[in-house]
C-alpha cells in the first residue's frame, strides 16, 4: 500500500484561519500532562473551596456571590501559569520549530495564543460559576445557607480580572521565553513592587496607580468607584501592555533553532 499521493502539479491551499489556529492553541494547552493536570487542579480547587465554605462559613454568608468570589482566587493564581506555559513551552520544548514552520506569520500564532487564553479565562469563569451555583443549592438545602442568587457586577468584573491575569501571563511568557523564569518573574516582580510601594513613602501615591494587585482589588470586589477604572487601566498598561508589546517584538525577531 502506498499512501504517498502523487505530488500536485500546481495549486496552493489557503492559509489556516484564526479560528482554527486558536483551536490548535487551546488543544496545545490541554494535550500535555502538565496542561491537563493544571486544569484538573483548577477545577478540583473550585469544588474543594465550595465544600470548605459549606462547612466552615457562616450560613448567612452562603450566597452565590460569596462562593463565586472565593473561586476567583485559584483562578487568579493558576490561569496565568497556563498562559505563561502556552507562550514559553514553544521555546522550552522547542516546538516553535514546528509551529513557525507551519505558520510562518508569527503574529498570527501570537494572536491565536491570546485568543485561546481569553477563551480559557471565559471557560474557567463559567465552570467556577457552575460550581458556585451547585454549592449555593446545596448550601440552602442542607446547610441552612442564605442561598441568595444575586451577583451584581461581580461576574463581568471577575471575568475582566481573569482575562487581564491570563493575558499578563501570556505577555510575560512571550517576553521571557522560558517557563521557569517567566513563572518566577510573573509572581515575584509585582509582589516586590507592592512591598517597595508600601515601604517607600514617595512611592505610595504612584503605587496606587501602578500596582496591579491594588488596582484590581475593587474589580474582584464588584465595585469600581471614582478613579478605579483609570487606575486599573494605568496598571494594566504597565503590567500587561508593555510586556506584551516587548514580547511581541521579540517573538517576531527571534531566530528559531
Amino acid at each position, binding site marked *: 500500500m502506498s499512501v*504517498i499521493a502523487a505530488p500536485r502539479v500546481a495549486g496552493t491551499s489557503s492559509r489556516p484561519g484564526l479560528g482554527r489556529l486558536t483551536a*490548535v492553541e487551546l488543544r496545545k494547552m490541554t494535550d500535555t500532562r502538565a496542561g491537563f493536570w493544571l486544569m484538573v487542579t483548577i477545577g478540583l480547587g473550585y469544588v474543594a473551596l465550595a465544600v470548605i465554605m459549606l462547612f466552615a462559613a457562616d450560613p448567612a454568608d452562603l450566597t452565590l456571590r460569596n462562593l463565586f468570589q472565593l473561586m476567583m482566587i485559584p483562578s487568579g493564581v493558576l490561569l496565568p501559569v497556563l498562559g505563561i506555559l502556552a507562550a514559553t513551552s514553544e521555546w522550552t520544548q522547542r516546538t516553535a*520549530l514546528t509551529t513557525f514552520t507551519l505558520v510562518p506569520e508569527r503574529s498570527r500564532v501570537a494572536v491565536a495564543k491570546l485568543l485561546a487564553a481569553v477563551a480559557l479565562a471565559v471557560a474557567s469563569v463559567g465552570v467556577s460559576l457552575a460550581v458556585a451555583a451547585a454549592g449555593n443549592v446545596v448550601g440552602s438545602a442542607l446547610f441552612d445557607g442564605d442561598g441568595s442568587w444575586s451577583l451584581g457586577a461581580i461576574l463581568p468584573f471577575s471575568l475582566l480580572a481573569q482575562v487581564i491575569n491570563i493575558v499578563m501571563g501570556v505577555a510575560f511568557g512571550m517576553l521571557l521565553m522560558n517557563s521557569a523564569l517567566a513563572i518566577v518573574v510573573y509572581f515575584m516582580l509585582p509582589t516586590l513592587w507592592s512591598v517597595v510601594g508600601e515601604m517607600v513613602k514617595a512611592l505610595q501615591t504612584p503605587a496606587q496607580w501602578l500596582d496591579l494587585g491594588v488596582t484590581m482589588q475593587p474589580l474582584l470586589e464588584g465595585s469600581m468607584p471614582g478613579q478605579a477604572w483609570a487606575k486599573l487601566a494605568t496598571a494594566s498598561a504597565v503590567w500587561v501592555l508593555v510586556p506584551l508589546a516587548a514580547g511581541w517584538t521579540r517573538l517576531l525577531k527571534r531566530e528559531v533553532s
Partner: protein
Amino acid sequence: MISVEHLTKRYGAHTAVDGVTFACEPGTVTGFLGPNGAGKSTTMRMICGLTPPSGGSATVHGVPYRRLPNPGREIGVLLDASAQHPGRTGREVLGLAAQTMGVDRRRVGELLDLVGLNATAAKRRVRAYSLGMRQRLGIALAMLGDPRVLILDEPANGLDPEGIFWMRGVLRDFADRGGTVLLSSHLLREVEAVADRLVVIGGGRVVASGTKDELLAGSGVRVRGLEPEKLEWALTTAGVPVTRTADGALVAQADAETVGRVAAAAGAVLLELRPADDGGLEQLFLTLTAGRTVKEAVK
C-alpha cells in the same frame, strides 16, 4: 523547486553562511553535504524562514517561504527530530499539525503506518521515543501535508540500518513521483546512495556542486589484479597515477579502457575494474572540506 541565491548569515564578526547559491529541481534528491558546523542547518533554517538572512534570498516554487499561505501543504520540513514536546503522544504531534494545516485526520493514521510507528508506539509519549523513532515521527510530520518538496536535516541520524534503507526508498519514491528533496547529512554513504545531485559546503561556502556523476568522475577507477605489484608496476610505467587502497586494490587516475589495455599489454590478470565510486565521495568530501584545502578550493 528550491532556489537559493547568495544566501548569507553573519553572527557578529562570524560568517556562518557565505553567499550560498544552489537550486533543487523537481524529480531529484539533492544531497547537502558538509562537516558539522559548515552551515548546513543555518542554510536550511533560512530557507524555511526561521532565521532571517543577512543577505541573499531563498524561494520555494518561486515564493519566499514566509509568504506561503499554508507552507505545510507545499513543503515538508524536518529540521530537528528532538524538537518535540516530550509530554505529547506521537499521534497527538501529528494530530496538531494536521489540524493546523487542515489535513484530514485519517492521514495521521496513514502516515504512522508509512513510517512504521505501530499503534502502541503512536500512543506513547515522545519522551519515551528513541532518536530513531523521533526521526520516523519527524518524517511522518514532514509528509503529512502531502507536500511537493521535502527539506530534511540529518534525517538518518539515529536510524538503524533497516531504517536508513527504508528512508532511502521513501525519498527515492518521493522524487521519482516528481517531488523535490533537499537532504543534509555528514554521513557520506547515506547521501551517496540516494542523491542525484550534491551540494558540498565547507566553512559556510559551497565548495562543490553538481550531479553525483560529475563530481565523482575525477575520482578514477578501482582496479584489482591477481598480482598487485605487477599491475602497479605496469600502470606506473605507462604513466597512470595509482594509489593503493587498504584492501590491496589500486585506484588509477585514468578511464577503464586505458587501464584495461595497460593490463592486457603487461599480461596482468584483472579481478576487478570499475569506477572508484566506493569511497570516492568520501575522498572528495575530505579534500574539499578539510582545513587548508577549503581555502584553496574556494579561491
